[in-house]
């Protein structure tokens, strides 16, 4: 058996070596379903004025709104943009290029809802009034800086563009609220963003894959070199930075956490077993379980994996202290524990679905070591390891049905009530202890936008042109999102018109007599003393009806470099346009009332087949919204699966249905009570706490089953057993609670509190529920025959 266990352990070690050994991946998107991940996680460079300059006289007098002069940050951003070269991707279309494009294609880009107004502007009297208006306004000394550009837009067609702010990404539109416009970021000549107060700039970079630590360090070096001589600070914000921060945290805190857990467990086991060899043996088996769990996860260690590895150690070591057992050999408890996280396979979270197999591997390897290898070693060495302390003084449990019923009812009711009120947080972004990272993300959100609120809408095509055309077909629906779910829609598809729209507009312009209208315009300009040649930019663009705002023209023109940043290649061939949608904050706030129709319904009509395909909003923010909406549904499903599996093992071990059902009730009551406790402590629930809830449920299932079995077999329940059956689990939870990572602390809190509750409920609730169930069963079906083939005697169960 020793050889068998060592062989199994070696196999896991080899498997781990083959995949390159344990490596700190720092993955932070383990709780984002794969189909909700952004195709290319974005990386931002945030430039900001140095804090000491904030006290300068010049900056103190700097006005709010558009800066009165090119700021230090803006100059630094422009220079840095040149130096970053291919690494840099424009955030927005360069201001002048976008203005030229829009002015050249204004007649095609006026939305359908404003076609009547467009027709009015092309009639004779309207043209005369427009020209008279230009001449009248020219008499103002402020005319040239008022924003009007008569050379490009004499008929003021800009006013006909849809007035919804945010419909052209970061470009401001006519009719936008002045206050909102004053607070909106500006676009630089290179297509980067400057904050409204001029004190921050934002650039977007794209690192060559993989965006690992070396690439990030190289980027930092280039930024430092590029900003030399400028009094600005830089910060990198994005998933790559979060992963780097997670890796640093794991490397800095992970080993300390593991050693703390080992030390606590060693202390606990020493007090119990009072044998150095026994303690060492148990810990080795536990660490073997950790190795197996790591190998089953292909060696990747992310922020979500560390707490579960520590809990593997704690829960596995508890298997060495199994007093009393559910069966003579004690396998039910090991199987309940091993399958505790199996329900996570039903969840949509990739990290948890991996742990649905990692956890059983770790626990089973540890259990095999404790049950088979150590006793075998003991026999080989002819030395008793004394793994199972002699039964000490104990007491006979008295089932208290009334108390059990009361506690169960109170817990279940409290849990149901708390689920309605508890703060449910989505699985993204994961909480972090990195204060500078949080500060940088807050500054980015304040000055520009929150990258955590970004979602995507995708349109596919065989070529980039086709993908952009397909995106243009979604334009109306994308704009409609601004009424409900979105604060801003950012896509090159909104700068073009789809082929059907272009054809329809060309027909309309011909019907309206565009050529005649342009001739009348020239005549009116001449009659008013103006030079028609000065308006040639508008007249030539309007007459060039063959040049339309098509996808091909956009990609070939000055908007091309910006537009191409939104188009990616698909692994199987083809291209995909990824329009970005900035969601409204109230959609993703915990108290936000979300209408699912605001998020998911978009139509993507395939022009080739005329099929109506669905194109959905997707992104970590959407996943977080779904987490909040469906958390209780998912929790219910996973908890029910866990209860069913655990009850099955209890029933198979004890052959008593009443024991199995009582243990399941106890487990449910403990989970409910834990939810109430976490709500009262102000802790948030969410996908991050699902494993803790399932593990606590399993611990309660085991504790409840043991207590019922002790009553049925009329064995005294040792006081030491009560304290120690959950002590190792609590110790692992406490080790996590002492760490600095908020995610680990939250898991530790849930496990420590939950396992303590499990221990108590196991003693005081499970036997009572079992007795109540048996009383309710008149035929005695629920009593079962037990392992010895005898029905438990009700009187005997109350003896002691």
């Amino acid at each position, binding site marked *: 058996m020793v050889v068998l266990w060592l062989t199994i352990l070696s196999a896991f070690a080899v498997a781990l070596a083959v995949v390159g050994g344990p490596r700190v991946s720092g993955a932070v998107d383990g709780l984002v379903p794969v189909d909700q991940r952004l195709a290319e996680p974005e990386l931002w460079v945030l430039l900001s004025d140095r804090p000491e300059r904030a006290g300068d006289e010049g900056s103190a007098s700097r006005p709010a709104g*558009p800066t009165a*002069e*090119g700021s230090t940050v803006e100059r630094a951003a422009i220079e840095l943009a040149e130096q970053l070269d291919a690494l840099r991707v424009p955030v927005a279309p360069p201001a002048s290029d976008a203005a030229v494009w829009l002015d050249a294609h204004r007649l095609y880009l006026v939305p359908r809802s404003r076609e009547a107004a467009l027709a009015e502007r092309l009639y004779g009297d309207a043209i005369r009034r427009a020209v008279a208006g230009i001449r009248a306004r020219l008499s103002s*000394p*402020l005319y*040239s800086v*008022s924003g009007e550009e008569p050379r490009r837009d004499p008929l003021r067609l800009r006013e006909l563009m849809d007035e919804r702010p945010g419909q052209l990404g970061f470009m401001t539109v006519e009719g936008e609220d002045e206050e909102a*416009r004053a607070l909106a970021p500006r676009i630089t000549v290179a297509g980067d963003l400057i904050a409204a107060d001029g004190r921050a700039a934002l650039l977007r970079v794209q690192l060559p894959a993989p965006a690992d630590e070396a690439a990030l360090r190289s980027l930092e070096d280039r930024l430092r070199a590029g900003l030399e001589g400028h009094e600005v600070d830089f910060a990198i914000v994005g998933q790559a930075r979060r992963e780097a921060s997670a890796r640093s945290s794991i490397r800095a805190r992970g080993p300390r956490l593991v050693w703390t857990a080992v030390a606590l467990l060693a202390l606990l086991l020493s007090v119990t077993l009072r044998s150095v060899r026994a303690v060492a043996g148990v810990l080795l088996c536990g660490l073997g379980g950790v190795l197996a769990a790591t190998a089953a996860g292909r060696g990747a260690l992310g922020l979500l994996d560390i707490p579960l590895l520590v809990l593997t150690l704690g829960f596995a070591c508890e298997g060495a202290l199994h007093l009393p057992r559910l069966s003579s050999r004690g396998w039910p408890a090991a199987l309940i524990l091993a399958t505790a996280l199996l329900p996570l396979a039903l969840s949509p979270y990739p990290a948890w679905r991996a742990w649905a197999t990692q956890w059983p591997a770790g626990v089973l390897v540890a259990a095999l070591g404790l049950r088979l290898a150590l006793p075998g070693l003991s026999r080989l060495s002819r030395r008793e390891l004394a793994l199972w302390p002699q039964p000490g003084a104990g007491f006979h449990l008295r089932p208290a049905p009334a108390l059990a019923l009361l506690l169960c009812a109170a817990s279940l009711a409290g849990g149901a009530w708390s689920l309605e009120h508890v703060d449910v947080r989505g699985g993204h972004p994961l909480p972090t202890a990195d204060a500078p990272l949080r500060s940088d993300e807050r500054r980015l959100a304040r000055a520009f936008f929150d990258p955590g609120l970004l979602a995507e809408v995708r349109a596919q095509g065989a070529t980039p042109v086709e993908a952009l055309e397909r995106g243009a077909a979604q334009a109306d629906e994308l704009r409609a999102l601004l009424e409900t779910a979105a604060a801003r829609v950012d896509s090159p598809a909104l700068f073009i018109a789809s082929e059907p729209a272009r054809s329809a507009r060309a027909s309309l312009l011909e019907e309206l007599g565009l050529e005649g209208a342009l001739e009348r315009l020239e005549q009116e300009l001449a009659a008013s*003393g103006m*030079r028609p040649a000065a308006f040639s930019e508008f007249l030539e663009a309007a007459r060039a009806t063959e040049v339309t705002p098509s996808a091909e023209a956009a990609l070939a023109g000055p908007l091309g470099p910006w537009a191409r940043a939104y188009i990616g290649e698909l692994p199987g061939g083809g291209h995909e346009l990824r329009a970005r949608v900035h969601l409204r904050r109230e959609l993703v706030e915990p108290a936000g009332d979300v209408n699912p129709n605001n998020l998911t319904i978009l139509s993507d009509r395939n022009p080739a087949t005329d099929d109506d395909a669905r194109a959905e909003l997707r992104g970590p923010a959407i996943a977080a919204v779904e987490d909040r909406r469906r958390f209780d549904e998912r929790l219910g499903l996973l908890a029910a699966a866990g209860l069913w599996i655990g009850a099955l093992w209890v029933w198979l071990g004890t052959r008593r249905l009443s024991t199995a059902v009582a243990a399941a009730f106890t487990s449910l009551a403990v989970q409910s009570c834990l939810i109430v406790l976490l709500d009262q402590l102000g802790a948030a629930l969410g996908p991050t706490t699902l494993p803790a809830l399932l593990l606590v449920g399993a611990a309660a299932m085991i504790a409840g089953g043991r207590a019922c079995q002790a009553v049925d077999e009329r064995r005294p329940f040792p006081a030491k057993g009560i304290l120690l059956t959950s002590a190792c689990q609590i110790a692992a939870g406490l080790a996590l609670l002492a760490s600095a990572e908020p995610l680990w602390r939250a898991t530790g809190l849930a496990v420590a509190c939950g396992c303590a509750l499990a221990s108590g409920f196991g003693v005081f609730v499970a036997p009572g529920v079992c007795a109540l169930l048996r009383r309710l069963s008149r035929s005695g079906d629920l009593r079962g025959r037990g392992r010895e083939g005898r029905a438990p005697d009700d009187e005997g169960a109350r003896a002691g």
Partner: protein
Amino acid sequence: MSEGCTRRRWLAATLGASAAVMLWRPRAGAAPASGGAPASRFDGFPDKTARRLRNRVELWRGYAARTQSLRARYTLTRRTSLLVDPLVVTGTLVFVAPATLVLRDDAHVGSTTRVVGDAVTITPNDSSAAARGRESPALAWLRARMLTLFAPPPGDNDPELAARALLEGCDVSIPKGAGMQLLLQPRAGADAITRALRSLRVRLDTMTGAVSALELEETLGDRVLLELGQQQQNLDEDVLRQLIDR
């Protein structure tokens, strides 16, 4: 008393008063109790230029400090590539401290420009579509210059504060030509402004210090000359209301 004696007494009195002023003014500009001497707005200029700048600012300040409201007649001439001939209009300018400026053309085919605080609207007099000024660094700069030129200086008539207010956001110089003139340009590096505006030349009445002309040079080549005359300060409220609300 002989005429020569009277003249000598006048000269002595004038010299004495000038000496007193020269001795007093540096103390008035001395460091406040809390710290060292503040830098002057004219630091960095050669002494002669600084003196000439100071004189012009003083001349301006003397008139502006007394202005709570102002009415003036103007002639605006715009030379632009949009027009075959220069555009010449006349109208009435009304200013009410601290930040209301209205320029109303006489002609029905002209327009009325209203600046109220940060808001700028240009409305054709024939009631066709008004244009609201879209906020930009260039608009903010020019609006601030025009309001500041007519408004009473801040800071209880302190010369240094007045100079800073007048010249904020500007590089200032004295252009060639006769008369009391200032050339205000956007600060070096203010690309967002220099894309639209090159300079604003301010001509002051040598006797009163009133702004007699503004000449705006735009980057696209347009030149705007705003000549002011028949200036009246501090009108009745009723008259002001009529002028502004018309």
